Structures are given as C-alpha cells and as structure tokens.
C-alpha cells in the first residue's frame, strides 16, 4: 500500500529539508516546495503514490501575490488536512486549518503534530470496532 503523502510548503530551505528528512524517517512520502506556485506542480495523483493526505503551509508562504494561489492549491487536493505553521505573534490567516503549530517549534515537534493529524485521519478511515 502506498505511504501517506505529505506536501510541505515552506520558503526556508533548511527547515524544510530537515522536516522532510524527519518525516521520511518516520515512514512518510514527502514532497517539499518553497512556495505555493511550486506546490501546485505536485500532482494530486501519481503512479504508485498515494494521494496527498496533508499539506503543511508555513505562514511565510502566504504572502502576496503567492497567497492568491492558496484556494487553487486546496482545490487541487480535495482530500488532505491543512496544517498551518504560524508565525509566533501574528494573527492566524483564514483557512480551514485542522491544526495550527506555532513557531518557534522543533522539527520533531512539528513532525509529531503532523503525525497526530494523520493518525486521526487514518482512525476515521477504520471501520468502528465492536
């Protein structure tokens, strides 16, 4: 079975690379993008890969004019949960966020937050136990 796919939209290269490595280590299929325009090129369905189950968006990626592409990205991936990596003292931007992780946060903490969201999704998929 295809591993759950996660899309990371984070402008800063190093945190993105480290988080990606951490999530791959934990068994996920991870795609990284520096901005929303690049993230659009991540196809919703690919041969031998599962659909994107979760999108993490760094608040720094939601700047004009890139932020105009937010709804397009969300409509392209109908299934996933949205997680916001928010700036420390900024208002949370509008969006159907499943969880908001606030900076500063360790790479491990972010990965665990994403894992928690995904396991909640997977639990919902399981048939109810007797």
């Amino acid at each position: 079975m295809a591993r759950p796919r996660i899309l990371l939209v984070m402008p800063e290269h190093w945190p993105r690379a480290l988080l990606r490595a951490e999530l791959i280590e934990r068994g996920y299929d991870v795609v990284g993008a520096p901005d929303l325009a690049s993230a659009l090129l991540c196809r919703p369905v690919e041969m031998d890969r599962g659909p994107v189950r979760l999108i993490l968006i760094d608040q720094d990626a939601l700047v004009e004019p890139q932020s105009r592409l937010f709804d397009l990205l969300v409509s392209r991936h109908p299934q996933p949960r949205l997680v916001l990596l928010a700036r420390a003292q900024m208002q949370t931007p509008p969006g159907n966020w499943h969880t908001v992780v606030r900076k500063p946060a360790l790479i491990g903490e972010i990965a665990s937050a994403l894992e928690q969201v995904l396991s909640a999704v997977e639990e919902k998929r399981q048939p109810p136990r007797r």
Partner: protein
Amino acid sequence: MDPLTETGASARFDHGVATHIGRRPNNEDAYRVAPELGLYAVADGLGGYEGGEIASDLAVGTLAEFIGATHAPSNERLAFWENALIEATRLAHQRIRARQVGPLAMMGTTLAAILVRDQTAIVCHVGDSRVYLLRNRELKQLTRDHTLYVEMLARGFEPGEDQRSIYANELTRALGMEGNADPDLAQVPMLAGDVFLLCTDGLYESLRDEQIAQVLEASSAQESCDRLVRQAYEQRGIDNMTALVVRVLDR
C-alpha cells in the same frame, strides 16, 4: 434520417479532419465526425501515461453513442442538449475510471466538441483541447483551457516566462482525472461563413493565431485541416496534432 432536419437546423456544413502523430511514438489523439448527429469532437489522450489512446477513443466514442441514443422532440430546447452533453461526458469519465487498472491506472483525456442544434453550436470542453471560431476574418478562442497557467492568470498571478509552459501543460480538469471532470459549455449562434476549428494542443502550440486564421480563411474544410497539420509539423511540432474544421455554408 437527418437529425439536423429533425432538430430544426437548416444550415449546411463542409467538414474535414486531419491528424498526425507528430514526433511521438504513438498517436493518442482521437476524433469523431458525425454530421448525421450534428456532432464533431476531438480528444487528446494524456501524454506520458499508458492508455492515452484508449481514453481518448472512449471519450469521443461515448459522446457519439450517447448523443446518438438520445431522442428529443424537435422543439426541445438547447438546455436539453446541454444536459445531454454533460451526461455523456460524465459517462465517458466513468468508463475511463472503470478501466483504470494496472498500467492504465493513470489514463485520461481531454475533450472538445460541438453539437449543432437549432442553428446553434453548443461548445463543450474539458482540458486543454480547444474550439476556435473564425468569423468576419477574426479568430476567437471559444474555450478556456483547464490548466494551472490559466487558473493562475485568473487569480492575477503570472508565472515567469520560463515557467509558463510548465504550468500550461498541467491540466486541472480532464476525463479520467480525480476531481471535477464536468465540461464547460457555451452556446454560439451559427452564421453563414463561420468556420469552427476543434484541435488538440499539438496543433495550436505550434502555430500562431494569424497563421491559423489565414489557413481557415482561404481553404475548404479538408484542405484547411491538411494544411494546418502540415504547417504545425513543419514548425517542429512534437506532440500529436489533430484539426477538425466545420464550415457553415449557408442557411
């Protein structure tokens, strides 16, 4: 039987079609010319995936089959036929999805069609195959590509010139693709002298609008198709290319 008469249309048409493999190993374009149904369609199987030619053939075949099996009283409104096109497209989408197993798992196709009823062309499309209209020497694109590039422009975001083709080649809607596969529809009253061109991206990407207009203006329908395909190929056209021309002769 002449359904054009049955549905009240009295225009006469000259039509032609041409397709070319381009520089690809396989031609995944398909078309249907069914003047007895008032239906003309082209489809472009998604490149890079197995089964593109199966998907495109299923799309145009299902459309013709559905429209051929749909009977309406002669005074039926255009909305009836619009609904028929939507249902036919959905059926094609379902048929493609049902066959997406093994190496065919990713197959899909675009579709561009016109259905002639009551001296009106109902334009129907999904994906980036196009319908153009040449009227009074002016070429107008009647369809809006379902691509990331067009969606980005609609939101006021223009990717850099070097990125343009990457986004233009990325479809946001296609038959067989996950998500919305419903067609966009438009009604265009047909006038004597109008020329409709249905084509796949391999054709319009190789030619400028002025070139297309020039050819459509000067030639018969079949001659136009042959010349358009030849010119597109000579201008280093790589992709499969298909041109289908319908010319309205008189009323």
